[in-house]
Structure formats: structure tokens, C-alpha cells
């Protein structure tokens, strides 16, 4: 790409806001009433980690996220997003890869574990998990979009990514390679939303950065101690 400095996020936007949100509407219609099952599964994961944060519950939570990332990879990116974005199938591959990474690092060879006693970081992670599962579907409605365009955890990318960031934030020493896709998509989605003039762009861009900073600071503190 020549004269790259003349480009802005809006130059890469391939679709209108209307087309983007219609995608969620049609996705939700196709999966109805799967939204309730996804919400119940998410609430179950949250309750597990809230009541007894340990390796076993972290493993179960990871299992739920593995399914979510696969559903988003195939159901959303491959079948829907790819119809309006030339990179849609690459995103599907990235989300499927993240599902496999979570399966390996969180279920098969568990390297994720929440501390039994809540810390400030794990409380923040739990809060993010709660927000992404129960509150994120309300964001669109509060911004004036219809219910049928709600973005639901486990079925659409942004709340699934936020929930995963929450899980990683609350874990003791999450492997670095589990951060790549969630942080990458978070920043990409923030740029897309920014170009669409969607107010949630700021939050979507800030959350991954804050999570990485918090984990980095926590690791630095451990090294000093």
C-alpha cells in the first residue's frame, strides 16, 4: 500500500452501518431462540467462577468459550460476515484457531486457573464477564437499535471477545498466545465501529488495551516481589 499515511479507518470500511447491523438481525433470526441458551450458558459460566474460582471451574468456563468461538467462527464469520467483507473467511479462521488454542490451553492442558481468593484483577475480569454476557446485548437497544440487532455472547464476536478477555484477566498467568486474537479483534472491531460512528467504539478499543496493561503490571509486580 503506497501513501499509507493518507489512509484512515474509514477508507477500509466496506459496508454501511445499516448493512452491518442488519447482519446481526438476520443472524439472530436464523439462530432464534438460541440467544436464550447462549445467555443461560454464559450466566452459568459466570456463576461458576463467582462461586468457586479454581482450576476446575476455569476449565469448564474455557470449554464454554471454545464452543462460543467455534459458533462465531462458522455461524457468524463464515456464513454471514464473509458476504460483506473480503476478509470474512480469514476472520473465521482466526476465531477457529482461537477456539483450538483455548481448547488446548484451557481444557486439554490447562494453563489457566483463577485464584481461589478474589484479587482486584480477577474481580475486574469477573465484572467484564458479567458485562459481556448480561449487559452487552442491551447496548444496542440503549443506543436506539432494535432488539433483533442485539449482539449476544457466544453468537457474535464482540461480547464473546470481551468475555474471553475477562476470563484471561482473572486467570493467574494466562499464556501470551491466548491474547493475540481477542486483542487483535477488539482493536479491529473498535476501528470498524469508529468508522461507523458507533459510540461503543471507544469501549471496544480501550478494554483490550486496559486488560493487557493490567496483566503486564501484575506480572511486573510479581517479578519485583
Amino acid at each position: 500500500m503506497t501513501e499509507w499515511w493518507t489512509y484512515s479507518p474509514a477508507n477500509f470500511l466496506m459496508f454501511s452501518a445499516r448493512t452491518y447491523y442488519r447482519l446481526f438481525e438476520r443472524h439472530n433470526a436464523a439462530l432464534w431462540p438460541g440467544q436464550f441458551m447462549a445467555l443461560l450458558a454464559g450466566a452459568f459460566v459466570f456463576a461458576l467462577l463467582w462461586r468457586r474460582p479454581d482450576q476446575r471451574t476455569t476449565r469448564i468456563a474455557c470449554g464454554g468459550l471454545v464452543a462460543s468461538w467455534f459458533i462465531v467462527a462458522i455461524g457468524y464469520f463464515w456464513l454471514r460476515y464473509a458476504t460483506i467483507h473480503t476478509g470474512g473467511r480469514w476472520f473465521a479462521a482466526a476465531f477457529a484457531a482461537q477456539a483450538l488454542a483455548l481448547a488446548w490451553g484451557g481444557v486439554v492442558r490447562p494453563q489457566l486457573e483463577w485464584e481461589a481468593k478474589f484479587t482486584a484483577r480477577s474481580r475486574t475480569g469477573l465484572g467484564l464477564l458479567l458485562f459481556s454476557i448480561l449487559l452487552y446485548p442491551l447496548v444496542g437497544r440503549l443506543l436506539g437499535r432494535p432488539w433483533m440487532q442485539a449482539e449476544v455472547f457466544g453468537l457474535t464476536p464482540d461480547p464473546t471477545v470481551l468475555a474471553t478477555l475477562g476470563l484471561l484477566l482473572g486467570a493467574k498467568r494466562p499464556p501470551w498466545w491466548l491474547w493475540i486474537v481477542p486483542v487483535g479483534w477488539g482493536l479491529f472491531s473498535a476501528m470498524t465501529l469508529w468508522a461507523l460512528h458507533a459510540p461503543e467504539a471507544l469501549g471496544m478499543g480501550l478494554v483490550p488495551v486496559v486488560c493487557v496493561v493490567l496483566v503486564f503490571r501484575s506480572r511486573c509486580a510479581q517479578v519485583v516481589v
Partner: protein
Amino acid sequence: MIPGNPFSISVSSTPSITRREALQGFVVIGATALLGRLGAADLRPNPLLTRRIPASGEEIPVVGLGSWITFNVGDDPEARAECTEVMRRFFGLGGRLIDSSPMYGSSPAVIGHGLAKLGRAQDVFSAEKVWTSGRDGAAQIEETRRRWGVPGFDLLQVHNLDNWETHLPLLFEMKAAKKLRYVGITTSHGRRTAETEQIMRTQPLDFVQVTYNAADRELEQRLLPLAQERGIAVIVNRPFREGALIKAMQRHPLPAWAAECDCQNWAQFLLKFIVSHPAVTCAIPATSNPAHVIENMGAAYGRLPDATMRRRMIAHVESL
């Protein structure tokens, strides 16, 4: 039309204007009037404004239809129906040239859907692009042709000059084999102007597509005069800066003197400014709104601004 000037505007005396197109003049004025944008005094017949393609003498309407973002609606049946309605009105008002690219996601397929629904595959002036960094241009062109559902393209352009050294020979070869009528290159946002000029000077291009509007006029200095000198038709993209320019203008009332060149709204004001440049062949505003296509096509009818009026338009836009 000024004899001998390939860039002059054609009016009803030219053989290319059919009775059907003349009738379409009534239709556009009538449709706009119904939308409350014209007074009774404006209800008069107007010929469709066309420009000659220097390479062939063929005439095309001065307003075409772009498809970047607006036609990329995927397989959404509701949105596809709206795009088809946009195309129906566009053709109904005399429009012919539709521009797209493999980079525009589902836009080529949505255009193909509309053409099939309307039975207009034979009428469209199809302007497509090749956009690949590899040597698979021919395969991409064939895939895009299949999505449009047309027997062949009228115009193929190298998208954003990407890999033009590879693609231009292929396009010239297709033209020589009569599988393609015209060859062109595109750029936008005023990028790679020097390289565009160099290609225009050295390659036998039929078309060049560039960004030009009342707020982006750098090309008036060199590139547009060069196109006139070399006999290259000019397609203008981003006439409204993807809507930003027209939104900025719509915060202000349309000046009364705009009526002197039959501009009834800001869309026509901005489009008539563009197509009145003697080097410009066609502007390609993109919309998915059927009402907007009527406004846009209104710029292909009535009087165009002369040089004095153009200066006044520039001063007015700059003052806002």
C-alpha cells in the same frame, strides 16, 4: 455539441438521444417535482446530457452509478430489493454506466441480481475493475463477469493502479481480441497522481477514474488537462466525498442562483459542477436510496454551469 470537440456536451440534436431518452427527461423532472423539489416552471422537457468517449465517439450519460459500500449488502434480500429499485430508477431515468470492483465485497453480485431482475444486462454500460496482486487477473475477471451475469464488460480498469504492469497488458490483449471494449485505470482520494499521469502518458488508455469534486480540485492543474490532451475519458468517483461533502452543504440553503443551471438540490449542484468540467465524461455517485438516485440523475438534465458559474460555485462552496 461543439463540432470537433470530443468533450463537448451532446444535446437533443444528436442522434444518440432517442425519443425514449427524451421522454425520460420528462420522467425525471416529473419524479423530482413529485418529491417537492421543483416548481411548476421547471416542468419542461430536457434532453439527457451525454458525453462522448474520445476513443470511440460513443456517448454515455454524464451521471452513472457507483457501488462502493452502498451495494455491498451481502445476501440480504430486503437490501438487495432496495438496490434493485435504485437500479430500476437509474435505468428509467436514462442512466447506463454502473461501476464496481471485486474489492467491493458483494456489490458485483448485487448488481448482477438487479440486472437479472430488471432484464437490463444488455443495456448497462458495465465498468468493472481488476484487483489482485498476483497474475490471476483473468480468473478474477471471469468470476466477476459471472457475478454480474453479463456476456462481457464494456470497461475494465486496474483498481487503484495495483499491479498495473501485469494487468494492463492483459486488458489490452482482451480488447484486441474484442472481449472488452475499453481499458482504464483508477485511483481515488488524489493518491498516486504522478504515477497516474505517467501511465496516462505512456499507455493507450481509454478511461481514467479519479476523485474530483468542488472541494478536491487539485486535478484541474495537470491531470484533467492531460486527459483532454490524450483523448482519455474521465470517470469521477467520490463526487460527494462518500456523503460528507453533501452533508456539510445541506446545513446551508441552496443559493437561489443555482436555479440558473437547473440545480434543484445540493446533489445536483455538486454533480453539475463536476460534469461541467470539459474533461469529465461521467460522475458516479453511489447510493442505496431510491430517492437519492432521482436527485442524482437530475444532474444529467437541464443546463450546465458555464465557466463563470463554475467559479461562483467554487467560491460559494469555499465560503461555507
